[in-house]
């Protein structure tokens, strides 16, 4: 089927929404702002859906659109504005625009009454624009535009309540830490241009395909640089510190950007460049290590957090660690599958948390919540679905994707079992703290103040329900029944033209079944512990914290990582800026140079000032000197006079 796609519409429509709401938003009536803001993602989703329907089945993917004007044409480097639609970007695009649209709808209710209403939606549309550019990019530079742009949108939205210092600081922190990662991305692009002469993904893959025996060396360096960039954007160790602080933004922002879409850009980028990573087993190992370590690390921190959004933030970091782990064992489809399901249930959880916060009038502390299941039944129901999904219980979506990752990790040589074990422990911890959240927030006796509670409007509840349905059934689309067990073959074969299929040795349905059972068992164990701690008696956690005060403090204070960074990186930088750059360079060198220049002019002027005495006779004397000089210059034949003078002096001194 040969349809005509207009891919450029997908970024363009949100951009138009951004411009309209951004420039005119404050003067337009609210219904118009809302309509424009909602129409853009809906239309983009429509185009993406249309593309999915008409193209996915045929062989006409990948579909490449290039804007007619070239961007960079220097010597051998040609970079264009090209959009590429293939199976991978199609999946991402549907997630981005679909979940994005739902969150836009939710925001209508959540941000109602806020004075920055139009500004919020314009920023949100801007984000969608950049994210779709990132996803549709056909070369690394285009992707970088989207990359930087989503960082910008993230900054704007995190610091949305900019009058609050903590929000403004959080926005800055997010942007700066992202930028540190972007250095890696830039370096990788430089190396790509230097070694491959091109930034287009397909060309790079082709060049790598020609030398299949090429591993290590430059490819490893490029891959590690890309990993640095991905770690910054996707909040992996050591650049995850911005994500918990990013919870200062409005909750729908946390749901969209810091759960479902922007933070997954790092994973997407790695999967896009998977050919590069495949040629460097060392880099893949590092990726897996980073992912596993982050997953465990973040899960441990999440155990001791009391802010509902912080718990979800650390769980996001942890789940992203899972995705990186999947990439690290070259199970790219599993990573994308988990990305997909995670988008559903994490967005759901964030939006539900937003509803709770909204209903409680801004309360975010879990210790002051409780017993909400009666007052917020719909929210309670959808949160339950979300928690079950993230813990990995079948048949919810998270089960299939997490399982696929753990299975691929287990089979990885040579240290796959260690990774698998870390993954299982993390699953246990995840289950524990998510159910802890569930118990503390919704069940038990109400600990919140007796303010009148109300369920949220349907504009907020509707998306929640849809996302809950997706969290429940979203995993089923990718699985099929093979070898007597369900696995994600359908999804894998769908993505196979892009990411290739990984052949695993030593697999089999039985092993998969066993591993799934262990994982589910771990999740159940976590639930049990959470039940014991938080449902049955509420003194056990306190006594445990008292018994291990240092351990508890370490976790509650996030391992003091922010403080460590502050002392080792931020403070020296600030000191360097203030004292060395500020005093030595600015005042000393630059100020000194300026002072020297001006001072010498003044000095010379002060000296010359004495020459202008007003005395006519000295003026006359200098006139005479001038006249003598002119006469000398004109009348003496210097070409012959100088040697003649020298001769004369020579003879006169008696030689």
């Amino acid at each position: 089927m040969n349809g005509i796609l207009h891919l450029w519409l997908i970024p363009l429509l949100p951009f138009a929404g951004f411009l309209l709401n951004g420039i005119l938003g404050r003067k337009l009536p609210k219904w118009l702002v809302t309509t424009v803001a909602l129409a853009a993602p809906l239309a983009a989703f429509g185009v993406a859906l249309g593309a999915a329907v008409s193209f996915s089945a045929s062989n006409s993917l990948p579909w490449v659109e290039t804007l007619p004007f070239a961007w960079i044409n220097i010597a051998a480097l040609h970079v264009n504005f090209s959009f590429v639609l293939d199976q991978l970007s199609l999946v991402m695009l549907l997630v981005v625009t679909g979940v994005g649209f739902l969150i836009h709808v939710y925001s209508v209710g959540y941000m109602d009454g806020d004075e920055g209403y139009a500004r919020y939606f314009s920023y949100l549309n801007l984000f969608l624009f950049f994210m779709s550019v990132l996803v549709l990019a056909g070369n690394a530079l285009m992707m970088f535009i989207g990359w930087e742009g989503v960082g910008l949108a993230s900054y704007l939205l995190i610091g949305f309540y900019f009058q609050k210092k903590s929000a403004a600081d959080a926005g800055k922190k997010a942007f700066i830490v992202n930028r540190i990662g972007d250095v890696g991305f830039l370096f990788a692009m430089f190396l790509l241009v230097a070694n491959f002469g091109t930034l287009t993904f397909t060309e790079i893959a082709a060049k790598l395909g020609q030398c299949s025996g090429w591993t290590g060396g430059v490819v490893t360096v490029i891959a590690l640089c890309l990993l640095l960039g991905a770690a910054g954007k996707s909040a992996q160790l050591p650049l995850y510190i911005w994500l918990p602080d990013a919870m200062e933004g409005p909750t729908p922002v946390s749901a969209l950007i810091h759960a479902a879409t922007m933070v997954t850009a790092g994973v997407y980028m790695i999967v896009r460049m998977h050919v590069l990573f495949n040629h460097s087993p060392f880099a893949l190992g590092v990726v897996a290590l980073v992912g596993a370590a982050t997953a465990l690390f973040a899960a441990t921190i999440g155990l001791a957090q009391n802010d509902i959004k912080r718990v979800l933030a650390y769980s996001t970091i942890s789940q992203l660690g899972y995705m990186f782990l999947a990439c690290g064992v070259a199970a790219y489809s599993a990573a994308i599958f988990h990305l997909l399901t995670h988008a559903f249930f994490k967005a759901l959880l964030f939006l539900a948390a937003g509803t709770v916060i909204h209903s409680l009038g801004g309360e975010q502390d879990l210790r002051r919540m409780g017993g909400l299941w009666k007052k917020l039944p719909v929210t309670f129901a959808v949160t339950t679905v979300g928690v079950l999904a993230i813990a990995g219980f079948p048949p919810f979506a998270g089960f299939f994707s997490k399982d696929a990752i753990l299975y691929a990790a287990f089979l990885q040589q040579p240290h796959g079992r260690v990774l698998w074990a870390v993954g299982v422990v993390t699953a246990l911890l995840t289950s524990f703290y998510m159910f802890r959240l569930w118990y503390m927030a919704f069940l038990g006796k109400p600990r919140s103040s007796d303010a009148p509670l109300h369920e949220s409007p349907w504009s907020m509840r509707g998306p929640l329900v849809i996302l809950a349905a997706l969290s429940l059934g979203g995993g089923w689309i990718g699985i099929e029944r093979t070898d007597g067990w369900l696995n994600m073959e359908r999804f894998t074969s769908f993505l196979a033209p892009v990411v290739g299929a990984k052949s695993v040795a030593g697999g089999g349905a039985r092993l998969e079944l066993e591993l799934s059972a262990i994982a589910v068992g771990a999740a159940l164990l976590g639930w049990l512990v959470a039940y014991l701690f938080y449902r049955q008696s509420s003194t056990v956690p306190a006594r445990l914290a008292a018994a291990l005060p240092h351990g508890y403090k370490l976790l509650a204070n996030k391992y003091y990582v922010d403080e460590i960074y502050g002392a080792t990186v931020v403070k020296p930088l600030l000191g360097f800026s203030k004292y060395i750059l500020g005093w030595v360079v600015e005042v000393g060198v630059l100020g000194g140079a300026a002072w020297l220049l001006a001072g010498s002019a003044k000095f010379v002027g002060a000296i010359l000032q004495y020459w202008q005495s007003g005395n006519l006779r000295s003026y006359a004397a200098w006139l005479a000197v001038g006249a003598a000089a002119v006469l000398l210059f004109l009348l003496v034949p210097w070409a012959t006079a100088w040697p003649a003078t020298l001769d004369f002096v020579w003879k006169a001194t008696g030689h």
Partner: protein
Amino acid sequence: MHLILFFIFAGFCLAGAINLLLQSHPIASALSLIVVMTSLAVLYLLLGAEFLAAAQVIVYAGAIMVLVTLVVMLLNAGREERTHGSHAAWLVGFPAVATILAVIATVILHLQRMGVAKLGDGITSTAELGTVLFTRLLLPFEVTSVLILIAILGAVALARRGNGEGTAGK
């Protein structure tokens, strides 16, 4: 004959010039200058420039120097006070003058094609002067007459009473 006359009147020139420098009263300097000018008039005669000699006496010695003397007497200029106003004039000016004199003298001494003046030879008639003046140099002639007019106006305007008088004595 020419030589003796040259020596005498050149001597008068030099004596007058040096006397101009040595005298401290301006009127004495003015009179010395008149001596120089009349001697120069004679030298012009020796060189055959009759008209110029006459003009020198009439215009320079007879008009300009008279004017100068008039101003000296009008302003009642007295002897010069010996002030040490300018060191530059001595330290810098004298070497400069010496250099100028040395350079010009050297050039003159190296001139190779200078001829000699004979008394009675090469006398330029006034008619010759007039011819060239009123044909080829007519424009400069007319311009100088305008110049003189302007000078008269300027002098009258400057020297009028009420011009810059308010600050005298302050």
